[in-house]
């Protein structure tokens, strides 16, 4: 395989799969007005991730997954509990809990794990898309050369889409009118807890490869880019994933080839570039909608 493709393809695949996983689930968060819960989970999974490594002593995907998902869900539940006990407003309770979790994760990483885990705090924030590459195996089948992160992300993307299809009507009903859905809906609490678990899983899977900045951007931006144009929940999800995918691809290519395109000295951080493009696209998308409305009026 061509050397450039061996570097670009796995990274692009990871970015696109993360867009499908986080972009799909992000629509539910945005519709429920819980965008910042995504940010909190993206920070709170870190200690669980590191603890998973430390307990098993290996880079076991299962251990890190379980640890991180538990930490993410625990942080959200703790912040709900704090609001009840101390009367803090939602944002403050969320901020208090996730900074504590994240600080604990950084502490574990720096004091214990630095030598055992090839995960440094900078990667945690900005991701390591650039370091994913395809190592063509000599004798084994071709797919054994695909980095583990890509497989994990493929699983997360499948989970996110499957969950949204199967529980779509309950999720939509809960997002539109929680009071009505909690009264009349089928197993509303179960569906809400599953959403929390699936969002945590999607975030964990994306986190190691794309970093917490891009996780947040992928959760909220595609949904908000699609929102002004969507006429149904399904339409909003489809549009958000398509536009998110296009922006993620172009963001990655610009960053990775910045030395050729922009004449900069080195390649740029691609997770950051994608996040910047996605965030810029949100107000642009609203301006486009306003222009269309003005013309048709």
């Amino acid at each position, binding site marked *: 395989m061509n050397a450039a493709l061996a570097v670009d393809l796995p990274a692009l695949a990871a970015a696109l799969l993360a867009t499908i996983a986080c972009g799909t689930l992000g629509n539910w968060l945005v519709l429920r*007005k819980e*965008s*910042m819960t*995504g*940010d909190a989970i993206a920070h709170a999974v870190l200690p669980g991730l590191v603890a998973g490594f430390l307990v098993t002593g290996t880079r076991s995907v299962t251990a890190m997954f379980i640890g991180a998902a538990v930490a993410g869900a625990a942080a959200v539940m703790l912040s709900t509990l*704090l609001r009840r*006990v*101390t*009367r*803090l*407003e939602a*944002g*403050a309770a*969320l*901020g*208090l809990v996730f*900074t*504590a979790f*994240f*600080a*604990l994760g*950084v*502490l574990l990483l*720096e*004091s214990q794990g*630095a030598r055992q885990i090839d995960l440094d*705090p*900078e990667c945690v*924030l*900005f991701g390591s898309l650039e370091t994913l590459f395809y190592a063509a195996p000599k004798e084994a089948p071709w797919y054994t050369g695909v980095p583990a992160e890509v497989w994990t992300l493929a699983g997360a993307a499948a989970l996110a889409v499957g969950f949204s299809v199967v529980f779509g009507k309950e999720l939509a009903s809960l997002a539109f009118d929680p009071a009505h859905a909690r009264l009349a809906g089928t197993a509303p609490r179960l569906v809400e807890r599953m959403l929390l678990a699936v969002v945590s899983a999607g975030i964990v899977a994306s986190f190691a490869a794309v*970093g917490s*900045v*891009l996780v*947040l*951007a992928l*959760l*909220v*931006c595609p949904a*908000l880019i699609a*929102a*002004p144009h969507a006429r149904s929940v399904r339409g909003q999800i489809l549009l958000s994933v398509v536009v998110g995918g296009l922006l993620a691809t172009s963001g990655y290519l610009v*960053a990775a080839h910045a030395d050729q395109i922009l004449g*900069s*000295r*080195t*390649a*740029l*951080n691609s*997770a*950051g*570039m*994608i*996040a*910047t493009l*996605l*965030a*810029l696209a*949100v*107000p642009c998308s*609203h301006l486009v909608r306003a222009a269309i409305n003005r013309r048709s009026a």
Partner: protein
Amino acid sequence: MTASAIGANTLGVLAGCMLFGALAGAVGTFVLARRRALVADVAGHAALPGVALAFLAGEALGLGGRTPWLLLLGGAATALLAAWCVPALSRLRRIGPDGATAVVLAGFFGLGAVLFSIVQGHPAGSQGGLRTLLFGSAAAMGRAEVVALLALATATLALLILFLRGLTVVAFDEDFARSAGLPVRGLDLLLTLLLVATVVAGMQMAGIVLVVAMLITPAAAARNLGGRIGRVTAIAAIVGAATAAAGVLASRAIAGVPTGAAMTLAATAAFLVTVPYAHFARGARA
């Protein structure tokens, strides 16, 4: 340890961190009362692109990348811009305050990540760079940094004390403030300025990612203990100063622990101690 053993610079760092902790606790009390906790989070993250730009500008102008006042200025500029973007964006249909906060945070921090990678690739950046700014490092603070922190924190604290009464009225009874003819919008703008100044003053020490914890957690602990606003603000300042000092000392004692993480955990511990108090004190009244 005697003063001579730890040295004048360490004393300066300790003084600086306690002043910052006190400031963050006091400003945080008003930030929580105005429900701006997550705006503080945005401001912290949004300082990154400004700091990176300031580094590159410093290098280009021959001042050196880590010129403290230039970094503070750059960080404050983008943090303020972000704080302005949140309400502007939340007015758009179908976005709302929650979505706007997340988008602005992601966008500014993403841009910060890009500029950060340029700084790290810069010949001057590869030596020290801005790495320590992410999670904070009291150890990496030189004399000039400490002086800049002391100056900015003192000025901010003075501004807070000067407008204390107006800020108090707006924070705890907005309707009364309006009816009394107080400039609510102006005072909110002032609070945003104080918030950004606090975040920027503390970023070298607490780091841009976790600096928000020093605005939220000590103030939340003080609220748990209850009492009138003056008392809450004072307790928040004391808790902030104490936990900031504990964080700095802990990060010196345990090698490799970033100051920001240590401070956050110290403040969280202080908060957890006060939670049962909040619970039982109210239970007794019921």
